[in-house]
């Protein structure tokens, strides 16, 4: 199951560049035990070599991720930005894209997330849906909206909390 909840949604996030955004998102995932401490840096390095900016309409988005190795539990983090940051275009690394929404899908096993990936590809192809996501007023409403669009069930306790519970 894909872990996703409002704690993993950054709304009106004010960042100067893509590195800051990826770091903030991977920090959220790390805090819950979903990815390793190095996952953020791995994703930033991966982005430099193989960018993930996507020239969607009516504004661009980015879909960063690193190898499955750093992922403990498949999970999704989302950042909706106050001001756009530059990501390079996946299809053309020489082109700068001004990105307003970043979706970080930390994927442990791609085949297991195939339904989510299908739903994401449908979402990315619909300008009115991307606008709807961008206009969500709170993390909670954005999380609810996305859960519905991606047919995700309510996330269970984070791994960190489960582990703590097990020790008691």
């Amino acid at each position, binding site marked *: 199951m894909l872990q996703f909840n409002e704690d993993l949604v950054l709304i009106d996030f004010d960042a100067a560049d893509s590195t800051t955004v990826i770091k903030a998102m991977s920090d959220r995932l790390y805090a819950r035990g979903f990815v390793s401490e190095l996952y953020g840096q791995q994703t930033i390095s991966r982005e430099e070599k193989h960018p993930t900016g996507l020239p969607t309409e009516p504004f661009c988005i980015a879909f960063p991720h690193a190898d499955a190795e750093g992922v403990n539990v498949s999970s999704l983090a989302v950042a909706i930005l106050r001001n756009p940051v530059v990501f390079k275009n*996946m299809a053309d690394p020489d082109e700068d894209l001004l990105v307003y929404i970043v979706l970080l899908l930390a994927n442990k096993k791609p085949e297991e*997330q*195939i339904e989510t*990936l299908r739903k994401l590809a449908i979402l990315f192809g619909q300008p009115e849906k991307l606008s709807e996501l961008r206009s969500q007023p709170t993390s909670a409403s954005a999380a609810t909206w996305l859960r519905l669009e991606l047919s995700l069930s309510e996330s269970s306790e984070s791994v960190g909390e489960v582990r703590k519970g097990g020790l008691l």
Partner: protein
Amino acid sequence: MGKLIVVACGAGINTSTIAEDSIRERLKKEGITDVEVKRILMADIDGYIGRMNLIVSMMKIFRTFDVPIVQGMPFLIGSKDEKEVLLNKIIKLIKE
């Protein structure tokens, strides 16, 4: 031996999985059973020279191969119609 479509992206994870899934689904619908679809890292593509019949790439390729290359970005961000056009093109190329 059947034909091989390779789907190449940087990490070989999320984006190529979407393209691979879309192509497999279409091949199944068409009843084409002798075409294999495999997602690979762009860095590993040389290992498939001579075996692959078609390249679907999620990124720009700065070199040429002796097989057709199709830009796979519409699988990720295209409208329903754009995805359909791309699938038609891939099916036509692999049947040739």
